[in-house]
Protein backbone atom coordinates (compact mmCIF):
# COMPACT_ATOMS: atom_id res chain seq x y z
CA UNK A 1 0.00 0.00 0.00
CA UNK A 2 2.66 2.49 0.99
CA UNK A 3 4.62 1.59 -2.10
CA UNK A 4 1.85 2.57 -4.43
CA UNK A 5 1.47 5.74 -2.47
CA UNK A 6 5.10 6.59 -2.89
CA UNK A 7 4.95 5.82 -6.56
CA UNK A 8 1.97 8.06 -6.89
CA UNK A 9 3.71 10.86 -5.07
CA UNK A 10 6.71 10.41 -7.34
CA UNK A 11 4.78 10.60 -10.54
CA UNK A 12 2.51 13.34 -9.33
CA UNK A 13 5.32 15.63 -8.28
CA UNK A 14 7.40 16.45 -11.31
CA UNK A 15 8.57 19.72 -9.87
CA UNK A 16 10.27 17.89 -6.98
CA UNK A 17 13.75 16.73 -7.69
CA UNK A 18 13.12 13.05 -7.10
CA UNK A 19 13.69 13.24 -3.35
CA UNK A 20 10.20 12.58 -2.02
CA UNK A 21 10.94 10.82 1.26
CA UNK A 22 9.99 13.97 3.04
CA UNK A 23 6.45 15.04 2.42
CA UNK A 24 6.64 18.31 4.28
CA UNK A 25 8.82 20.12 1.80
CA UNK A 26 8.29 23.79 1.68
CA UNK A 27 5.32 24.21 -0.58
CA UNK A 28 6.38 25.44 -3.97
CA UNK A 29 3.97 27.47 -5.87
CA UNK A 30 1.79 24.96 -7.70
CA UNK A 31 1.71 25.15 -11.47
CA UNK A 32 -1.32 26.77 -12.95
CA UNK A 33 -4.03 24.16 -12.88
CA UNK A 34 -7.22 23.81 -14.83
CA UNK A 35 -9.29 23.69 -11.67
CA UNK A 36 -8.57 25.19 -8.27
CA UNK A 37 -8.42 22.94 -5.22
CA UNK A 38 -11.71 24.43 -4.10
CA UNK A 39 -13.45 23.43 -7.30
CA UNK A 40 -11.94 19.97 -7.14
CA UNK A 41 -13.11 19.52 -3.54
CA UNK A 42 -16.56 20.57 -4.55
CA UNK A 43 -16.70 18.17 -7.46
CA UNK A 44 -15.40 15.16 -5.57
CA UNK A 45 -17.36 16.07 -2.44
CA UNK A 46 -20.65 16.01 -4.28
CA UNK A 47 -19.61 12.96 -6.24
CA UNK A 48 -18.70 10.98 -3.10
CA UNK A 49 -21.94 11.76 -1.28
CA UNK A 50 -24.19 11.43 -4.32
CA UNK A 51 -24.89 7.66 -4.10
CA UNK A 52 -26.70 8.12 -0.80
CA UNK A 53 -28.84 10.94 -2.12
CA UNK A 54 -29.67 9.11 -5.35
CA UNK A 55 -30.70 6.00 -3.44
CA UNK A 56 -32.56 8.09 -0.92
CA UNK A 57 -34.45 9.91 -3.64
CA UNK A 58 -35.70 6.63 -5.09
CA UNK A 59 -36.06 4.46 -1.99
CA UNK A 60 -36.54 7.16 0.67
CA UNK A 61 -38.10 10.48 -0.30
CA UNK A 62 -40.40 9.19 -2.98
CA UNK A 63 -41.87 6.26 -1.01
CA UNK A 64 -42.39 8.42 2.07
CA UNK A 65 -44.21 11.16 0.15
CA UNK A 66 -46.18 8.55 -1.74
CA UNK A 67 -47.21 6.92 1.55
CA UNK A 68 -48.75 10.19 2.68
CA UNK A 69 -50.48 10.49 -0.69
CA UNK A 70 -51.69 6.91 -0.76
CA UNK A 71 -53.21 7.25 2.71
CA UNK A 72 -55.97 9.35 1.14
CA UNK A 73 -56.84 6.90 -1.61
CA UNK A 74 -58.51 3.57 -1.92
CA UNK A 75 -56.30 1.25 -3.91
CA UNK A 76 -55.97 -2.49 -4.33
CA UNK A 77 -52.59 -2.25 -6.04
CA UNK A 78 -53.90 -2.93 -9.54
CA UNK A 79 -56.99 -0.92 -10.45
CA UNK A 80 -57.79 2.78 -10.37
CA UNK A 81 -56.90 4.81 -7.32
CA UNK A 82 -59.91 6.47 -5.79
CA UNK A 83 -59.64 9.56 -3.60
CA UNK A 84 -61.42 8.93 -0.31
CA UNK A 85 -60.23 11.81 1.88
CA UNK A 86 -59.76 10.83 5.50
CA UNK A 87 -61.80 7.70 5.08
CA UNK A 88 -58.83 5.34 5.43
CA UNK A 89 -58.07 6.81 8.83
CA UNK A 90 -61.73 6.49 9.69
CA UNK A 91 -61.66 2.84 8.73
CA UNK A 92 -58.64 1.92 10.81
CA UNK A 93 -59.75 4.00 13.79
CA UNK A 94 -63.05 2.14 13.72
CA UNK A 95 -61.37 -1.23 13.40
CA UNK A 96 -61.12 -2.89 16.83
CA UNK A 97 -58.21 -4.96 15.55
CA UNK A 98 -56.20 -1.79 14.91
CA UNK A 99 -56.66 -0.70 18.52
CA UNK A 100 -55.89 -4.22 19.65
CA UNK A 101 -52.65 -4.17 17.67
CA UNK A 102 -51.70 -0.85 19.23
CA UNK A 103 -52.54 -2.13 22.71
CA UNK A 104 -50.60 -5.36 22.13
CA UNK A 105 -47.58 -3.50 20.82
CA UNK A 106 -47.44 -1.29 23.90
CA UNK A 107 -48.06 -4.10 26.40
CA UNK A 108 -45.57 -6.45 24.76
CA UNK A 109 -43.10 -3.58 24.46
CA UNK A 110 -43.39 -2.84 28.17
CA UNK A 111 -43.21 -6.49 29.21
CA UNK A 112 -40.32 -7.24 26.91
CA UNK A 113 -38.16 -4.19 27.54
CA UNK A 114 -38.74 -2.61 30.97
CA UNK A 115 -37.81 -5.69 33.06
CA UNK A 116 -35.14 -6.53 30.53
CA UNK A 117 -33.35 -3.19 30.88
CA UNK A 118 -33.46 -3.44 34.67
CA UNK A 119 -32.10 -6.98 34.50
CA UNK A 120 -29.38 -5.80 32.13
CA UNK A 121 -28.40 -3.05 34.56
CA UNK A 122 -28.19 -5.51 37.46
CA UNK A 123 -26.22 -7.97 35.35
CA UNK A 124 -23.81 -5.25 34.32
CA UNK A 125 -23.31 -4.36 38.01
CA UNK A 126 -22.54 -7.99 38.77
CA UNK A 127 -20.16 -8.32 35.83
CA UNK A 128 -18.42 -5.09 36.79
CA UNK A 129 -17.90 -6.20 40.37
CA UNK A 130 -14.30 -6.54 41.49
CA UNK A 131 -15.23 -9.75 43.27
CA UNK A 132 -15.81 -11.66 40.04
CA UNK A 133 -13.45 -13.70 37.88
CA UNK A 134 -14.16 -15.28 34.49
CA UNK A 135 -15.93 -12.11 33.40
CA UNK A 136 -15.33 -12.71 29.73
CA UNK A 137 -16.93 -16.16 29.93
CA UNK A 138 -20.10 -14.76 31.50
CA UNK A 139 -20.08 -11.88 29.05
CA UNK A 140 -19.90 -14.30 26.15
CA UNK A 141 -22.71 -16.43 27.53
CA UNK A 142 -25.16 -13.56 27.91
CA UNK A 143 -24.23 -12.05 24.56
CA UNK A 144 -24.67 -15.22 22.53
CA UNK A 145 -28.46 -14.88 22.07
CA UNK A 146 -27.90 -11.60 20.25
CA UNK A 147 -26.01 -13.48 17.53
CA UNK A 148 -29.11 -15.57 16.89
CA UNK A 149 -31.41 -13.98 14.33
CA UNK A 150 -34.82 -12.74 15.44
CA UNK A 151 -36.49 -15.35 13.24
CA UNK A 152 -34.46 -18.15 14.83
CA UNK A 153 -35.32 -16.84 18.31
CA UNK A 154 -39.00 -16.65 17.41
CA UNK A 155 -38.94 -20.24 16.12
CA UNK A 156 -37.07 -21.61 19.14
CA UNK A 157 -39.47 -19.92 21.53
CA UNK A 158 -42.50 -20.95 19.47
CA UNK A 159 -41.46 -24.52 20.15
CA UNK A 160 -40.60 -23.88 23.80
CA UNK A 161 -44.03 -22.29 24.27
CA UNK A 162 -45.86 -24.85 22.16
CA UNK A 163 -49.51 -25.49 22.97
CA UNK A 164 -49.01 -29.20 23.42
CA UNK A 165 -48.96 -30.73 26.85
CA UNK A 166 -45.49 -31.99 26.03
CA UNK A 167 -44.24 -28.49 25.20
CA UNK A 168 -41.28 -27.46 27.34
CA UNK A 169 -43.01 -24.76 29.37
CA UNK A 170 -46.27 -26.68 29.62
CA UNK A 171 -44.58 -29.83 30.86
CA UNK A 172 -42.63 -27.74 33.36
CA UNK A 173 -45.86 -26.16 34.61
CA UNK A 174 -47.34 -29.65 34.73
CA UNK A 175 -44.82 -30.56 37.44
CA UNK A 176 -46.56 -28.00 39.64
CA UNK A 177 -49.98 -29.30 38.69
CA UNK A 178 -50.78 -26.37 36.40
CA UNK A 179 -52.90 -27.24 33.36
CA UNK A 180 -51.27 -26.80 29.97
CA UNK A 181 -51.73 -23.34 28.44
CA UNK A 182 -52.61 -22.78 24.77
CA UNK A 183 -49.93 -20.14 24.41
CA UNK A 184 -50.66 -18.99 20.87
CA UNK A 185 -54.35 -18.51 21.54
CA UNK A 186 -54.50 -17.03 25.01
CA UNK A 187 -54.51 -13.31 25.70
CA UNK A 188 -51.65 -13.27 28.17
CA UNK A 189 -49.98 -16.47 27.05
CA UNK A 190 -49.15 -15.01 23.65
CA UNK A 191 -47.88 -11.80 25.19
CA UNK A 192 -45.72 -13.62 27.72
CA UNK A 193 -44.19 -15.83 25.02
CA UNK A 194 -43.43 -12.90 22.70
CA UNK A 195 -42.02 -10.81 25.55
CA UNK A 196 -39.81 -13.74 26.53
CA UNK A 197 -38.35 -13.80 23.02
CA UNK A 198 -37.49 -10.10 23.24
CA UNK A 199 -36.10 -10.46 26.74
CA UNK A 200 -33.84 -13.38 25.90
CA UNK A 201 -32.38 -11.93 22.73
CA UNK A 202 -31.70 -8.40 23.96
CA UNK A 203 -30.79 -8.62 27.63
CA UNK A 204 -27.18 -9.51 26.90
CA UNK A 205 -26.83 -6.76 24.31
CA UNK A 206 -27.99 -4.13 26.78
CA UNK A 207 -25.83 -5.62 29.53
CA UNK A 208 -22.74 -5.22 27.36
CA UNK A 209 -23.63 -1.60 26.65
CA UNK A 210 -24.13 -0.78 30.34
CA UNK A 211 -20.94 -2.60 31.17
CA UNK A 212 -19.03 -0.51 28.65
CA UNK A 213 -20.50 2.57 30.30
CA UNK A 214 -19.54 1.43 33.78
CA UNK A 215 -16.00 0.66 32.76
CA UNK A 216 -15.65 4.18 31.42
CA UNK A 217 -16.38 5.70 34.84
CA UNK A 218 -13.08 6.81 36.41
CA UNK A 219 -12.23 4.96 39.58
CA UNK A 220 -11.24 8.20 41.37
CA UNK A 221 -14.89 9.10 41.68
CA UNK A 222 -15.57 5.97 43.71
CA UNK A 223 -12.37 6.44 45.73
CA UNK A 224 -13.35 9.97 46.60
CA UNK A 225 -16.85 8.87 47.55
CA UNK A 226 -15.47 6.10 49.75
CA UNK A 227 -13.24 8.58 51.57
CA UNK A 228 -16.31 10.70 52.17
CA UNK A 229 -17.95 7.62 53.68
CA UNK A 230 -20.47 6.88 50.92
CA UNK A 231 -22.14 3.46 51.11
CA UNK A 232 -22.33 1.14 48.13
CA UNK A 233 -25.93 2.13 47.58
CA UNK A 234 -25.03 5.82 47.60
CA UNK A 235 -22.22 5.17 45.16
CA UNK A 236 -24.60 3.44 42.79
CA UNK A 237 -27.26 6.16 42.99
CA UNK A 238 -25.00 9.16 42.91
CA UNK A 239 -22.11 8.04 40.72
CA UNK A 240 -22.93 5.02 38.60
CA UNK A 241 -26.47 5.86 37.52
CA UNK A 242 -25.85 9.54 36.66
CA UNK A 243 -22.65 8.67 34.80
CA UNK A 244 -24.52 5.98 32.88
CA UNK A 245 -27.21 8.40 31.80
CA UNK A 246 -26.21 8.62 28.12
CA UNK A 247 -26.10 4.83 27.93
CA UNK A 248 -29.48 4.51 29.61
CA UNK A 249 -30.95 7.07 27.21
CA UNK A 250 -29.56 5.16 24.26
CA UNK A 251 -30.88 1.78 25.38
CA UNK A 252 -34.30 3.12 26.35
CA UNK A 253 -34.59 4.84 22.98
CA UNK A 254 -33.56 1.92 20.84
CA UNK A 255 -35.62 -0.50 22.92
CA UNK A 256 -38.73 1.67 22.63
CA UNK A 257 -38.43 2.22 18.92
CA UNK A 258 -37.59 -1.44 18.36
CA UNK A 259 -40.57 -2.54 20.43
CA UNK A 260 -42.94 -0.34 18.41
CA UNK A 261 -41.73 -2.06 15.24
CA UNK A 262 -42.15 -5.65 16.39
CA UNK A 263 -43.15 -7.89 13.55
CA UNK A 264 -41.26 -11.17 13.20
CA UNK A 265 -42.13 -12.52 16.64
CA UNK A 266 -45.95 -12.46 16.37
CA UNK A 267 -45.80 -13.25 12.65
CA UNK A 268 -43.92 -16.46 13.32
CA UNK A 269 -45.43 -17.39 16.67
CA UNK A 270 -49.08 -17.05 15.65
CA UNK A 271 -48.91 -17.74 11.94
CA UNK A 272 -48.85 -15.50 8.91
CA UNK A 273 -52.13 -13.68 9.42
CA UNK A 274 -51.46 -13.06 13.09
CA UNK A 275 -54.07 -13.42 15.79
CA UNK A 276 -55.73 -10.76 17.94
CA UNK A 277 -53.83 -11.86 21.06
CA UNK A 278 -50.44 -10.97 19.68
CA UNK A 279 -50.89 -8.88 16.54
CA UNK A 280 -48.61 -5.81 16.46
CA UNK A 281 -49.01 -2.55 14.55
CA UNK A 282 -46.51 -3.53 11.88
CA UNK A 283 -48.15 -6.93 11.50
CA UNK A 284 -51.52 -5.17 11.15
CA UNK A 285 -50.01 -2.97 8.43
CA UNK A 286 -48.48 -5.99 6.68
CA UNK A 287 -51.78 -7.84 6.82
CA UNK A 288 -53.78 -4.93 5.42
CA UNK A 289 -51.32 -4.49 2.56
CA UNK A 290 -50.12 -7.93 1.59
CA UNK A 291 -52.94 -10.03 3.02
CA UNK A 292 -55.98 -8.01 1.97
CA UNK A 293 -54.55 -5.66 -0.71
CA UNK A 294 -55.91 -2.62 1.17
CA UNK A 295 -52.95 -0.41 0.36
CA UNK A 296 -54.73 2.80 1.34
CA UNK A 297 -55.53 1.73 4.89
CA UNK A 298 -52.09 0.16 5.19
CA UNK A 299 -50.49 3.49 4.28
CA UNK A 300 -52.70 5.24 6.80
CA UNK A 301 -51.45 2.75 9.40
CA UNK A 302 -47.84 3.49 8.44
CA UNK A 303 -48.44 7.18 8.99
CA UNK A 304 -50.11 6.63 12.34
CA UNK A 305 -47.15 4.44 13.34
CA UNK A 306 -44.77 7.20 12.32
CA UNK A 307 -46.51 9.69 14.60
CA UNK A 308 -46.71 7.18 17.44
CA UNK A 309 -42.95 6.72 17.21
CA UNK A 310 -42.43 10.48 17.33
CA UNK A 311 -44.70 10.81 20.38
CA UNK A 312 -42.98 7.96 22.21
CA UNK A 313 -39.52 9.31 21.44
CA UNK A 314 -40.48 12.73 22.77
CA UNK A 315 -42.04 11.21 25.88
CA UNK A 316 -38.88 9.18 26.42
CA UNK A 317 -36.72 12.22 26.17
CA UNK A 318 -38.76 14.05 28.80
CA UNK A 319 -38.83 11.07 31.12
CA UNK A 320 -35.14 10.34 30.89
CA UNK A 321 -34.30 13.98 31.46
CA UNK A 322 -36.28 13.91 34.66
CA UNK A 323 -34.57 10.77 35.90
CA UNK A 324 -31.23 12.40 35.25
CA UNK A 325 -32.14 15.47 37.25
CA UNK A 326 -33.01 13.55 40.42
CA UNK A 327 -29.47 12.23 40.47
CA UNK A 328 -28.07 15.75 40.49
CA UNK A 329 -25.55 15.11 43.26
CA UNK A 330 -23.39 12.85 41.14
CA UNK A 331 -23.48 15.07 38.11
CA UNK A 332 -20.74 17.45 37.36
Amino acid at each position, binding site marked *: *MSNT*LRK*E*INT*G*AEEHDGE*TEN*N*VKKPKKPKKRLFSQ*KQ*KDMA*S*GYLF*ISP*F*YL*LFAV*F*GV*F*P*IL*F*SFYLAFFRWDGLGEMEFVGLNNFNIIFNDPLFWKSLYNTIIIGLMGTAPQLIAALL*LAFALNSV*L*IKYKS*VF*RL*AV*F*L*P*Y*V*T*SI*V*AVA*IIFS*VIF*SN*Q*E*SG*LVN*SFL*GVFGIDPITWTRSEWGAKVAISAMIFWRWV*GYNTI*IYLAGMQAIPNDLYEAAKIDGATLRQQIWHITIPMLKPFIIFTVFTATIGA*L*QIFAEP*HIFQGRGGRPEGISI*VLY*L*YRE*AFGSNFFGT*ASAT*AIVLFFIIIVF*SAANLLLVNRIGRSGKVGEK
Partner: protein
Amino acid sequence: MSSEKKKLRSAKLFIYTSLILVGLASLFPFYWMFVMATNPNNLINRNPPVMTPGTEMFSNFQKVLDSIPFFQAMLNSLIVTTSITFGVLILCSLAGFAFAKLHFPGRTILFVFILGTMMIPPQLGLIPTYFIITELGWLSDLRAVIVPGLMNAFGIFWMRQYISSSVPDELIEAARIDGCSNFRIYWNIIVPVILPAFATLGIIVFMAIWGDYLWPLVVLQDQSTHTIQVALRSLMDDRVRDYGMILSGTFWATVPLIVVFLLFNRLFIKSITDGAVKS
Protein backbone atom coordinates in the same frame (compact mmCIF):
# COMPACT_ATOMS: atom_id res chain seq x y z
CA MET B 1 -12.78 -7.72 60.38
CA SER B 2 -13.88 -11.33 60.13
CA SER B 3 -17.54 -10.37 59.90
CA GLU B 4 -16.56 -8.01 57.09
CA LYS B 5 -14.83 -10.89 55.36
CA LYS B 6 -17.86 -13.10 55.82
CA LYS B 7 -20.06 -10.46 54.29
CA LEU B 8 -17.74 -10.18 51.35
CA ARG B 9 -17.73 -13.93 50.86
CA SER B 10 -21.51 -14.19 50.91
CA ALA B 11 -21.77 -11.30 48.45
CA LYS B 12 -19.35 -13.11 46.18
CA LEU B 13 -21.32 -16.33 46.47
CA PHE B 14 -24.54 -14.50 45.69
CA ILE B 15 -23.13 -12.81 42.59
CA TYR B 16 -21.59 -16.01 41.29
CA THR B 17 -24.79 -17.98 41.79
CA SER B 18 -26.89 -15.39 39.99
CA LEU B 19 -24.41 -15.09 37.15
CA ILE B 20 -24.25 -18.84 36.68
CA LEU B 21 -28.04 -19.09 36.68
CA VAL B 22 -28.31 -16.27 34.15
CA GLY B 23 -25.60 -17.83 32.02
CA LEU B 24 -27.42 -21.16 32.02
CA ALA B 25 -30.73 -19.51 31.13
CA SER B 26 -28.95 -17.75 28.31
CA LEU B 27 -27.37 -20.90 26.92
CA PHE B 28 -30.17 -23.38 27.58
CA PRO B 29 -32.27 -22.60 24.46
CA PHE B 30 -29.19 -23.40 22.33
CA TYR B 31 -28.73 -26.74 24.03
CA TRP B 32 -32.40 -27.50 23.81
CA MET B 33 -32.48 -26.58 20.13
CA PHE B 34 -29.73 -29.15 19.58
CA VAL B 35 -31.64 -31.76 21.61
CA MET B 36 -34.75 -31.26 19.49
CA ALA B 37 -32.76 -31.22 16.26
CA THR B 38 -31.32 -34.64 17.01
CA ASN B 39 -34.38 -36.46 18.33
CA PRO B 40 -37.22 -38.32 16.66
CA ASN B 41 -40.74 -36.95 16.98
CA ASN B 42 -42.05 -39.65 19.28
CA LEU B 43 -39.47 -38.63 21.90
CA ILE B 44 -40.05 -34.91 21.33
CA ASN B 45 -43.78 -35.27 21.88
CA ARG B 46 -43.35 -37.40 24.99
CA ASN B 47 -44.26 -35.92 28.33
CA PRO B 48 -41.92 -35.04 30.01
CA PRO B 49 -39.94 -34.12 26.88
CA VAL B 50 -36.55 -35.60 26.12
CA MET B 51 -33.60 -33.65 27.53
CA THR B 52 -30.58 -35.36 26.01
CA PRO B 53 -29.28 -35.31 22.42
CA GLY B 54 -30.55 -38.15 20.23
CA THR B 55 -29.50 -39.98 17.10
CA GLU B 56 -31.66 -38.35 14.43
CA MET B 57 -29.35 -35.48 13.54
CA PHE B 58 -29.02 -36.49 9.88
CA SER B 59 -32.54 -37.68 9.23
CA ASN B 60 -34.00 -34.49 10.71
CA PHE B 61 -31.76 -32.38 8.54
CA GLN B 62 -32.64 -34.48 5.51
CA LYS B 63 -36.28 -33.59 6.15
CA VAL B 64 -35.27 -29.91 6.19
CA LEU B 65 -33.61 -30.33 2.80
CA ASP B 66 -36.76 -32.01 1.47
CA SER B 67 -38.89 -29.14 2.71
CA ILE B 68 -36.91 -25.99 1.85
CA PRO B 69 -33.91 -25.21 -0.41
CA PHE B 70 -31.74 -24.78 2.68
CA PHE B 71 -28.35 -24.33 1.01
CA GLN B 72 -29.79 -22.11 -1.71
CA ALA B 73 -31.34 -19.91 0.98
CA MET B 74 -28.07 -19.75 2.93
CA LEU B 75 -26.29 -18.80 -0.30
CA ASN B 76 -28.89 -16.12 -1.04
CA SER B 77 -28.44 -14.68 2.42
CA LEU B 78 -24.69 -14.74 1.99
CA ILE B 79 -24.88 -13.00 -1.41
CA VAL B 80 -27.24 -10.31 -0.11
CA THR B 81 -25.33 -9.76 3.10
CA THR B 82 -21.83 -9.60 1.64
CA SER B 83 -22.86 -7.37 -1.29
CA ILE B 84 -24.56 -4.92 1.02
CA THR B 85 -21.75 -5.00 3.57
CA PHE B 86 -19.01 -4.29 1.03
CA GLY B 87 -21.12 -1.76 -0.82
CA VAL B 88 -21.98 0.08 2.38
CA LEU B 89 -18.35 0.14 3.51
CA ILE B 90 -17.21 1.73 0.26
CA LEU B 91 -20.09 4.19 -0.20
CA CYS B 92 -20.15 5.24 3.45
CA SER B 93 -16.41 5.72 3.75
CA LEU B 94 -16.36 7.83 0.58
CA ALA B 95 -19.22 9.96 1.84
CA GLY B 96 -17.72 10.06 5.33
CA PHE B 97 -14.43 11.27 3.83
CA ALA B 98 -16.23 13.98 1.90
CA PHE B 99 -18.11 15.18 4.97
CA ALA B 100 -15.06 15.04 7.21
CA LYS B 101 -12.29 16.45 5.01
CA LEU B 102 -13.57 18.11 1.87
CA HIS B 103 -15.07 21.57 1.84
CA PHE B 104 -18.04 22.20 -0.34
CA PRO B 105 -21.07 24.45 -0.09
CA GLY B 106 -23.97 22.96 1.86
CA ARG B 107 -21.79 20.39 3.61
CA THR B 108 -23.28 20.86 7.06
CA ILE B 109 -26.88 20.95 5.99
CA LEU B 110 -26.46 17.91 3.77
CA PHE B 111 -24.92 16.01 6.68
CA VAL B 112 -27.66 17.04 9.09
CA PHE B 113 -30.16 15.86 6.51
CA ILE B 114 -28.57 12.41 6.52
CA LEU B 115 -28.76 12.32 10.31
CA GLY B 116 -32.41 13.27 10.05
CA THR B 117 -33.18 10.33 7.80
CA MET B 118 -32.09 8.00 10.60
CA MET B 119 -35.20 9.01 12.56
CA ILE B 120 -37.60 7.75 9.91
CA PRO B 121 -39.03 4.30 10.63
CA PRO B 122 -38.41 1.98 7.67
CA GLN B 123 -42.06 0.89 7.60
CA LEU B 124 -43.17 4.38 6.55
CA GLY B 125 -42.15 3.88 2.94
CA LEU B 126 -42.66 0.12 2.85
CA ILE B 127 -45.66 -0.03 0.55
CA PRO B 128 -44.56 2.45 -2.14
CA THR B 129 -41.09 0.88 -2.15
CA TYR B 130 -42.75 -2.44 -2.84
CA PHE B 131 -44.42 -0.93 -5.91
CA ILE B 132 -41.17 0.66 -7.07
CA ILE B 133 -39.55 -2.76 -6.89
CA THR B 134 -42.49 -4.19 -8.84
CA GLU B 135 -42.08 -1.50 -11.49
CA LEU B 136 -38.37 -2.23 -11.76
CA GLY B 137 -39.21 -5.90 -12.29
CA TRP B 138 -37.17 -6.86 -9.24
CA LEU B 139 -39.76 -8.91 -7.37
CA SER B 140 -38.17 -12.23 -6.40
CA ASP B 141 -34.80 -10.82 -7.37
CA LEU B 142 -32.01 -10.35 -4.82
CA ARG B 143 -31.42 -6.84 -6.15
CA ALA B 144 -34.69 -5.84 -4.48
CA VAL B 145 -32.96 -6.29 -1.13
CA ILE B 146 -29.41 -5.35 -2.09
CA VAL B 147 -29.95 -1.98 -3.79
CA PRO B 148 -32.08 -0.28 -1.11
CA GLY B 149 -29.78 -1.82 1.49
CA LEU B 150 -26.84 0.18 0.18
CA MET B 151 -28.43 3.31 1.61
CA ASN B 152 -27.05 3.55 5.12
CA ALA B 153 -27.20 6.83 7.00
CA PHE B 154 -25.68 5.45 10.16
CA GLY B 155 -22.67 4.20 8.22
CA ILE B 156 -21.99 7.66 6.80
CA PHE B 157 -22.29 9.21 10.24
CA TRP B 158 -19.98 6.58 11.71
CA MET B 159 -17.34 6.97 9.01
CA ARG B 160 -17.41 10.74 9.18
CA GLN B 161 -16.79 10.67 12.93
CA TYR B 162 -14.01 8.14 12.58
CA ILE B 163 -12.25 9.91 9.72
CA SER B 164 -12.38 13.36 11.27
CA SER B 165 -10.85 12.07 14.50
CA SER B 166 -8.26 9.69 13.08
CA VAL B 167 -6.87 11.35 9.94
CA PRO B 168 -4.93 14.59 10.59
CA ASP B 169 -5.51 17.39 8.10
CA GLU B 170 -1.75 17.79 7.66
CA LEU B 171 -1.52 14.35 6.09
CA ILE B 172 -4.08 15.31 3.48
CA GLU B 173 -2.42 18.68 2.85
CA ALA B 174 0.91 16.98 2.32
CA ALA B 175 -0.56 14.54 -0.18
CA ARG B 176 -2.18 17.41 -2.02
CA ILE B 177 1.06 19.27 -2.36
CA ASP B 178 2.43 16.15 -3.96
CA GLY B 179 -0.42 16.25 -6.44
CA CYS B 180 -2.70 13.50 -5.14
CA SER B 181 -6.24 13.64 -6.40
CA ASN B 182 -9.05 13.39 -3.84
CA PHE B 183 -9.75 9.82 -4.82
CA ARG B 184 -6.04 8.97 -4.48
CA ILE B 185 -6.10 10.48 -1.02
CA TYR B 186 -9.13 8.38 -0.16
CA TRP B 187 -7.65 5.18 -1.50
CA ASN B 188 -4.04 5.50 -0.34
CA ILE B 189 -4.35 7.50 2.87
CA ILE B 190 -7.85 7.24 4.28
CA VAL B 191 -8.59 3.57 3.61
CA PRO B 192 -5.48 2.16 5.36
CA VAL B 193 -6.16 4.32 8.41
CA ILE B 194 -9.82 3.42 8.75
CA LEU B 195 -9.54 -0.37 8.49
CA PRO B 196 -10.66 -0.75 12.15
CA ALA B 197 -13.76 1.30 11.35
CA PHE B 198 -14.42 -1.02 8.40
CA ALA B 199 -14.35 -3.98 10.76
CA THR B 200 -16.75 -2.36 13.20
CA LEU B 201 -19.23 -1.09 10.65
CA GLY B 202 -18.92 -4.30 8.65
CA ILE B 203 -19.95 -6.43 11.62
CA ILE B 204 -22.85 -4.14 12.50
CA VAL B 205 -24.18 -4.10 8.94
CA PHE B 206 -23.65 -7.82 8.43
CA MET B 207 -25.60 -8.68 11.56
CA ALA B 208 -28.46 -6.33 10.71
CA ILE B 209 -28.83 -7.53 7.13
CA TRP B 210 -28.39 -11.22 7.92
CA GLY B 211 -31.28 -11.05 10.38
CA ASP B 212 -33.50 -8.79 8.27
CA TYR B 213 -36.93 -10.30 7.82
CA LEU B 214 -39.84 -8.04 6.90
CA TRP B 215 -38.47 -6.59 3.66
CA PRO B 216 -37.11 -9.86 2.20
CA LEU B 217 -40.40 -11.49 3.14
CA VAL B 218 -42.30 -8.88 1.13
CA VAL B 219 -40.18 -8.82 -2.03
CA LEU B 220 -38.56 -12.27 -2.27
CA GLN B 221 -41.69 -14.25 -2.99
CA ASP B 222 -40.26 -17.04 -5.10
CA GLN B 223 -38.93 -19.87 -2.96
CA SER B 224 -35.67 -20.05 -4.89
CA THR B 225 -34.87 -16.46 -3.89
CA HIS B 226 -35.74 -16.77 -0.19
CA THR B 227 -33.13 -15.69 2.27
CA ILE B 228 -32.53 -18.11 5.12
CA GLN B 229 -34.77 -16.12 7.50
CA VAL B 230 -37.71 -16.29 5.12
CA ALA B 231 -37.03 -19.94 4.36
CA LEU B 232 -36.86 -20.89 8.05
CA ARG B 233 -40.25 -19.38 8.66
CA SER B 234 -41.82 -21.53 5.98
CA LEU B 235 -40.78 -24.57 8.03
CA MET B 236 -43.57 -23.52 10.40
CA ASP B 237 -46.24 -23.74 7.69
CA ASP B 238 -47.19 -27.42 7.99
CA ARG B 239 -50.42 -28.05 9.84
CA VAL B 240 -48.81 -30.80 11.88
CA ARG B 241 -45.53 -29.35 12.97
CA ASP B 242 -42.44 -31.50 12.93
CA TYR B 243 -40.43 -29.86 15.68
CA GLY B 244 -37.37 -32.00 15.11
CA MET B 245 -37.19 -30.81 11.53
CA ILE B 246 -38.02 -27.17 12.33
CA LEU B 247 -35.34 -26.88 14.96
CA SER B 248 -32.84 -28.80 12.88
CA GLY B 249 -33.14 -26.14 10.17
CA THR B 250 -32.94 -23.35 12.74
CA PHE B 251 -29.96 -24.97 14.43
CA TRP B 252 -27.90 -25.41 11.27
CA ALA B 253 -28.76 -21.90 10.11
CA THR B 254 -27.53 -20.51 13.43
CA VAL B 255 -24.36 -22.56 13.85
CA PRO B 256 -22.23 -20.75 11.22
CA LEU B 257 -22.91 -17.38 12.82
CA ILE B 258 -22.10 -18.70 16.27
CA VAL B 259 -18.83 -20.20 15.06
CA VAL B 260 -17.81 -16.91 13.47
CA PHE B 261 -18.87 -15.06 16.59
CA LEU B 262 -16.87 -17.33 18.90
CA LEU B 263 -13.77 -16.95 16.72
CA PHE B 264 -13.92 -13.17 16.70
CA ASN B 265 -15.94 -12.56 19.85
CA ARG B 266 -13.79 -9.72 21.22
CA LEU B 267 -13.91 -7.77 17.97
CA PHE B 268 -17.59 -8.59 17.68
CA ILE B 269 -18.59 -7.37 21.11
CA LYS B 270 -16.38 -4.33 20.81
CA SER B 271 -17.92 -3.44 17.44
CA ILE B 272 -21.47 -3.76 18.68
CA THR B 273 -20.80 -1.66 21.79
CA ASP B 274 -18.80 0.96 19.89
CA GLY B 275 -21.52 1.26 17.29
CA ALA B 276 -24.08 1.78 20.01
CA VAL B 277 -22.14 3.86 22.47
CA LYS B 278 -20.47 6.35 20.19
CA SER B 279 -23.66 7.36 18.52
